[in-house]
């Protein structure tokens, strides 16, 4: 009897520890050696705010830079809609969330918000009416922002033309439609604490950390989430699926991450979302580059690189080392025997831009060779790009791949996705029509 009780207790303790371990999440920079200090106690170069070159600018100018760095536009703009007027649909397993209008329209936007309201929203995830935001709004990241930076962002948003655009109501199923539930979630997962620099790390590192964690909120997509949907920093930047797209492993693992990219390459990719031989960012990362990262000052890109380079490697065995050899010629009989439909669609709709070799005859942005997307044996992002298309802003103008999801069947999209990974990637994928149907709906629209 007694022993039994002891056993039960031990079991309960183990269960609690396990549960605690599962739900416990370390801070975003906890991986780094050295301890952190409050901003006010930090003696190094201020890691917050805007780059020196912009520091003398007015608050709106500074706010514009920070708003871009925080990439507010990507989520707060419907496809083809007015920037910041909201309406982008996030298709989640338990319903659809619509991003709100954050233009200063008094009725449909945030025109009536006070400074305190805005700070509350970004730091605590609480709306002026006291209701709770869902963590699709990355306030656990924005909570790291200084008050000054938050208010600069607000100043910029309030300088925009007010757009009258009602936000469609969310359609979440019970119990997810109970916003108050987020209170408990926030208790666990929103530190409500400003960024704490780490004096043992370099000034660049600290700036990079602020950019990546407080503003850019990289981990919101690139870090896997735990059971309670919190960013799990134990697997920091190890890759995850967000909004139907795979945000790849950006740890320093040389095979599945970006550990083999040198400093210059990493910087170039961050600034352009494209490096010859490494492919092109598409989907949400393409948007993050276009709306946010390409506007960053070179010193901030460098700071980000320094920070990324410090991320511990975590191997993802599902991602092979990208194939760097060009494919050759037209499809072989074997390819056709394996996937005739995929070969047909590739020939008709894809080859003109992407080339049969994986090197585009037109534009390096359309190269496949060496890119992670075609070297992902789930073919998830290949399929999403096909379904929805890709639009990228390059130094030489806008580059567009049209979407094919409306006119090609799930079966066809699966076939051509598998054809593409087989021809251009290290490992062929086996995505199915059912997968296409599912993932196509997951993308934000």
């Amino acid at each position, binding site marked *: 009897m007694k022993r039994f009780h002891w056993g039960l207790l031990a079991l309960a303790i183990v269960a609690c520890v396990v549960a605690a371990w599962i739900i416990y999440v370390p801070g975003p920079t906890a991986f780094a050696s050295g301890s952190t200090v409050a901003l006010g106690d930090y003696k190094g170069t201020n890691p917050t705010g805007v780059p020196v070159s912009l520091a003398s600018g007015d608050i709106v100018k500074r706010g514009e830079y920070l708003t871009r760095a925080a990439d507010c536009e990507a989520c707060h703009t419907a496809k083809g809609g007015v920037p910041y007027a909201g309406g982008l649909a996030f298709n989640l397993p338990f319903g659809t969330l619509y991003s709100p209008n954050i233009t200063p329209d008094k009725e449909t936007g945030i025109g009536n918000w006070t400074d305190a309201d805005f700070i509350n929203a970004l730091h605590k995830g609480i709306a002026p009416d006291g209701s709770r935001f869902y963590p699709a709004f990355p306030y656990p990241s924005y909570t790291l922002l200084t008050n000054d930076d938050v208010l600069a962002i607000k100043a910029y948003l309030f300088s925009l033309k007010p757009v009258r655009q009602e936000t469609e109501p969310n359609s979440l199923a019970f119990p997810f439609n109970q916003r108050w539930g987020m209170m408990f979630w926030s208790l666990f997962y929103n530190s409500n604490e400003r960024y704490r620099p780490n004096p043992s790390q370099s000034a660049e590192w600290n700036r990079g950390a602020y950019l990546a964690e407080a503003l850019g909120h990289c981990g919101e997509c690139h870090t896997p989430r735990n059971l309670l949907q919190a960013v799990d920093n134990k697997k920091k930047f190890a890759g995850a699926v967000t909004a139907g797209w795979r945000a790849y492993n950006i740890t320093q693992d040389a095979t599945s991450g970006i550990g083999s990219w040198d400093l210059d390459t990493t910087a170039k990719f961050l600034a352009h979302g494209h490096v010859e031989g490494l492919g092109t960012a598409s989907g949400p990362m393409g948007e993050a580059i276009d709306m946010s990262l390409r506007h960053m000052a070179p010193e901030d890109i460098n700071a980000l690189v320094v920070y990324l380079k410090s991320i511990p490697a975590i191997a993802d065995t599902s991602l092979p080392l990208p194939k760097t050899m060009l494919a050759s010629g*037209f499809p072989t009989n074997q390819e056709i025997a394996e996937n005739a439909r995929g070969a047909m669609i590739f*020939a008709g709709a894809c*080859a003109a831009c992407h080339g049969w070799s994986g090197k585009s*005859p*037109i534009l390096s942005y359309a190269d496949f060779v060496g890119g992670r997307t075609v070297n992902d044996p789930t073919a998830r992002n290949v399929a999403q790009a096909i379904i929805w298309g890709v639009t990228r802003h390059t130094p030489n103008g806008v580059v567009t791949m*049209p979407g094919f999801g409306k006119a090609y069947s799930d079966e066809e999209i699966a076939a051509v996705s598998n054809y593409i990974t087989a021809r251009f990637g290290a490992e062929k994928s086996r995505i199915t029509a059912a997968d296409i149907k599912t993932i196509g709906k997951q993308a934000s629209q």
Partner: protein
Amino acid sequence: MITLHVNGQPHDVDASPDTPLLWALRDVLGMTGTKFGCGIAQCGACTVHVDGQAVRSCQLSIGSVGDQAITTIEGIGSSDVGAKVQKAWLDLEVIQCGYCQSGQIMSAAALLAHKPHPTDEDIDAAMAGNICRCGTYVRIREAIKKATAA
């Protein structure tokens, strides 16, 4: 000013480097044989050769062409393979409205230059990017085969 080498002749083009080759050919150089169909490399009507490769000129900016040799439908007949393709096209009366056929002929000529004896699968791979709304596909296939036999 950008210099393009079209059908063996240098041409100075006063247009911004992002201008697609298609519009430089048509609007600046007045070479209208290369056609606009979709503007997104889905139809192939704008196909030209750049260093012997079939390329969609609606997507290729003149700034990225450099010194590469451009061949258009106006010049393809001066190559053996081009002339053979043109002849086969007429012998089999492939053409209907003809609007896509500049591109079809350019794609076929590029195919035959690289693969003098293409299989049906090669023809599919090389020609599937060229849409013909009149539906001349049956004859295009035959004409390519005829051109190889010639």
